[in-house]
């Protein structure tokens, strides 16, 4: 279900802001998409990774003799074969202290998690590669695994601890604020280890074009241009001789498109073996090899006054990074600290993050990194403040929200290397809108009636603050061909979110053409020099505004030239469906953009003019991120017998500044809720004490199905367009996910009538059964 926010007064648009069908859909519904597993090159070899079955140990010997004799095997590599290759680098400059913790392509003499690559087999078919991989035998002397990020640190390597860094940010007089507080509320909270788990597993094809001396990586995603830089640096090649190609991507969610050992291995092998190398991950591998996320343990304290106003907030947490520090460095822990205060005014704050390694699959970003965790912590705390002071949960939120009059609001914190300055927002307004739409007050009556009939039913709330539009810059080239078709070349990326459609809508609106005549290029490093990609809800903000800039330049160029030909001042001209017309005179002389393109084609005049063809570049820069925000509301029922949680209603109100396509925004929000529910109730990477992963298939790692995800009610709000970009856009990709853990916890507390009962995610039936048993035992105790 969707609810359109009331349109505010603004210029009428043709396609921007409209629910137009997606350009991406047609090949995908016909089964004609091209995902990386669907692509093959002549003469290719298949790679199979041999992975460590031991969480922590010393490799004494790897015996691949028998495997080498297996049918179809062309080569087998262990670390000794590629010893010259360095550790995998960070994408952005990171703290020096993290450097020793980076992952090698293949384990050298120590394995650190189950699933770590220790050898690779290259064979003539995927089946034969897998056969041979089973014959590779690694002799590993087991070491005690370190599985608890809260326990005393262990040794990662001689002289190096499992805690490379302690992150710290804050402001104000913490001891003073706590000393003068009316009361202090303190909680211990944790978030389970879960991750993006896209439906398409990872895959990569490395291909070395010896004729051109170009190294190609097919199956790139998320940040192809940034990954090109990393790849070029890694292989010590010029950027122009490394090309990455994005195909269809079956979901990204933060994990897909980071560079992993396999991406480098297929490239290295393609150069050494002189044949294209194809690697397609299977699901079991995915669940032990692809980035995990979220697992943190928080000890949070708030100093509050008698009215429930927060005077100070202090959080100390332990971040379970897993076995290595991958391409993101310490980004998730950094974001947790920088975004933890959320939409509330917090006069004094300190966040301390212990970034710790364990013998689990390495962790990195997953949709709403640091904010899913931080929102759970902060919103649990606000509920606890309300409970402690006997105040209403919503009223406590209202009293602490940053007023819109205080925008822009400087948080005195950093996130992703930028200063957190909240750009715009009417937090209290959206809170009121959403509780009214949800019918919160009337709902309380229904809940009371149902409880009287013995049901465990309750409502929950969480507010969220997101960040989006990470800079610094994006460029786009918009070109019109002689037939009037438009090409938009971006440095962006599509992970299935509707990028092409959104970019086409922005271009179509700006230029005055039909969005279906626009082709949007993304993820092709040989088409554009600069770009970043699709992460941190940046694509529509950054690339979208670059599209707007480039399309504006093309429009200006077209009108300038047309004004000579049509003998009318440019300001009296308009472009309608690709035709330049005189405003208000439909029968007058016209010229099409295609004709203009032909006239502007390269030649002495064009060169003198400084433009070739009807084609312009456009740039967008941003020093600061823009901050979407919103509210999550849930109604849940807990089955007293089984401990199962049923989500009966769920609402998200999300302010995205301006929605380019409300249908796509709603899709992002609802999909985000589904993933958030997974982390709140079902999904967890569990490990045995010996470090064996216990969630290696979809019967053990539970993704929400159509049964578990309710019909989410979405309010796409546009109350607070961002002042930081001409289109007013804020990112929409993560807000649907961010608040779910917090809102569900709040609702479950309410349903079972024990404020503060939920202290950890996921809320499993076993946890709830134990809580309900305690509740029964206690009430029995009281009555006897």
């Amino acid at each position, binding site marked *: *279900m969707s609810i359109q926010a009331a349109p505010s007064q603004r210029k009428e648009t043709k396609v921007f802001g409209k629910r137009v*069908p*997606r350009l*991406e*859909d*047609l090949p*995908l*519904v*016909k*089964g*004609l*998409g*091209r*995902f990386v*597993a*669907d692509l*093959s090159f002549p003469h290719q070899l298949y790679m199979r990774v041999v992975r460590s079955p031991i969480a922590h140990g010393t490799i004494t010997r790897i015996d691949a003799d028998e495997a080498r004799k297996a049918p179809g095997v062309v080569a087998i590599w262990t670390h000794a074969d590629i010893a010259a290759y360095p550790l995998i680098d960070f994408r952005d400059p990171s703290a020096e202290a993290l450097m020793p913790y980076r992952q090698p392509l293949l384990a050298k003499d120590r394995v650190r998690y189950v699933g770590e690559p220790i050898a690779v087999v290259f064979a003539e078919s995927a*089946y034969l590669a897998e056969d041979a991989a089973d014959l590779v035998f690694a002799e590993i002397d087991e070491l005690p695994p370190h599985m608890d990020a809260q326990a005393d640190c262990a040794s990662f390597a001689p002289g190096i601890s499992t805690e490379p860094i302690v992150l710290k940010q804050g402001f104000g007089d913490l001891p003073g604020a706590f000393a003068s507080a009316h009361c202090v509320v303190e909680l211990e909270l944790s978030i389970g280890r879960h991750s*993006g*788990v*896209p*439906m*398409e*597993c990872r895959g990569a094809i490395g291909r070395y074009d010896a004729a051109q001396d170009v190294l190609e990586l097919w199956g790139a995603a998320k940040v192809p241009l940034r990954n090109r830089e990393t790849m070029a640096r890694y292989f010590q090649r010029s950027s122009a001789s490394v090309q990455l190609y994005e195909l*269809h*991507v*079956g*979901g990204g*969610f933060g994990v897909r498109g980071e560079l992993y050992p396999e991406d480098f291995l297929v490239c290295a092998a393609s150069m050494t073996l002189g044949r294209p190398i194809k690697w397609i991950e*299977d*699901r079991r591998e995915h669940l032990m090899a692809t980035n995990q996320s979220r697992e943190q343990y928080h000890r949070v304290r708030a100093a509050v006054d008698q009215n429930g106003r927060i005077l100070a907030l202090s959080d100390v947490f332990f971040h379970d990074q897993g076995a290595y520090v991958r391409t993101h460095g310490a980004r998730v822990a950094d974001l947790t600290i920088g975004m933890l205060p959320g939409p509330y005014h917090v006069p004094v704050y300190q966040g301390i993050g212990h970034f710790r390694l364990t013998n689990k699959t390495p962790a990195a970003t997953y949709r709403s990194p640091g904010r899913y965790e931080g929102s759970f912590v902060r919103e649990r705390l606000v509920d606890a403040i309300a409970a402690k002071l006997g105040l209403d949960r919503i009223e406590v939120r209202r009293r602490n929200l940053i007023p819109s009059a205080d925008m822009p609001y400087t948080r005195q914190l950093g996130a992703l290397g930028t200063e957190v300055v909240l750009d715009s927002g009417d937090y209290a307004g959206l809170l009121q809108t959403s509780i009214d739409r949800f019918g919160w007050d009337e709902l309380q009556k229904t809940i009371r009636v149902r409880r009287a009939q013995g049901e465990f039913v309750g409502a929950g709330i969480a507010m969220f603050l997101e960040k989006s539009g990470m800079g610094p810059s994006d460029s786009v080239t918009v070109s019109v061909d002689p037939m009037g078709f438009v090409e938009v070349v971006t440095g962006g990326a599509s*992970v*299935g*979110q*509707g990028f092409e459609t959104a970019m086409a809508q922005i271009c179509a609106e700006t230029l005055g053409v039909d969005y279906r005549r626009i082709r949007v290029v993304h993820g092709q490093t040989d088409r554009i020099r600069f770009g970043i990609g699709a992460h941190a809800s940046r694509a529509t903000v950054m690339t979208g505004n670059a599209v707007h800039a480039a399309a504006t330049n093309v429009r200006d160029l077209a009108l300038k030239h047309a004004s000579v030909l049509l003998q009318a001042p440019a300001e009296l001209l308009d472009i309608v469906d690709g035709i330049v017309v005189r405003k208000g005179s439909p029968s007058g002389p016209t010229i099409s953009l295609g004709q203009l393109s032909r006239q502007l084609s390269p030649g002495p005049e064009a060169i003198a003019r400084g433009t070739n063809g009807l084609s312009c570049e456009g740039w967008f820069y941003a020093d600061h991120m823009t901050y979407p925000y919103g509210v999550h509301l849930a109604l849940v029922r807990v089955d007293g017998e089984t401990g199962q949680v049923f989500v009966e209603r769920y609402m998200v109100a999300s302010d995205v500044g301006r929605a380019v396509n409300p*249908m*796509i925004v*709603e*899709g992002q929000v*609802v*999909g*985000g*809720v*589904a*993933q958030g529910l997974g982390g709140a109730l079902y999904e967890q990477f569990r490990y045995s004490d010996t470090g064996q992963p216990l969630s290696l*298939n*979809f*019967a053990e790692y539970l*993704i929400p*199905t*159509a*049964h578990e*995800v309710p*019909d*989410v009610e979405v309010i796409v709000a546009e109350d607070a367009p961002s002042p930081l970009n001409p289109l007013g856009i804020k990112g929409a990709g993560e807000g649907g996910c961010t608040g779910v853990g917090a809102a569900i916890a709040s609702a479950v507390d309410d349903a079972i009538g024990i404020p503060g009962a939920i202290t950890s995610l996921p809320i499993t039936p076993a946890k709830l059964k134990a809580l309900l048993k305690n509740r029964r035992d206690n009430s029995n105790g009281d009555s006897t």
Partner: protein
Amino acid sequence: MDSRDIVVTVNGIRHEATVKTRVTLADFLRHQLELTGTHLGCEHGVCGACTVLVDGRTARSCLMLAVQAHGHEIRTVEGIAPNAKELHPLQTAFQKHHGLQCGFCTPGMLTTLIEFLHDNPDPTEAEVRIAISGNLCRCTGYQGIVDAALDAAKTMRNST
């Protein structure tokens, strides 16, 4: 390694092929016939992305061997549209209702729903949700898929 000769009809075209006995139906369709619309999301029969129709009934092509398809009629996502120009009502409805984002689960959703709507032309929302509960989608939160199925059912009822 054992190979067998099989005869199988896929999307109305008869294929005579020699297949290794251990090759799954999914791999046969994807790599031997180059029908890559059938996707592999888990290879253990849970996610439903590889669902195809075998003699009109859904089957997980990752859990079935190509040799088991001998003598049977297979329909994949590439063969569900009535012809090259038109779409199946479900394909149209998926676009209209934003029933897909990345599109990876879509082929399995479509084949699953074709069987379901054949058996139950006038389903309730709850019945649709049960029907697709064996197909995982990580992008949409399912609502667009459910809406598309209900809309397509209506279209299909009206056209018969």
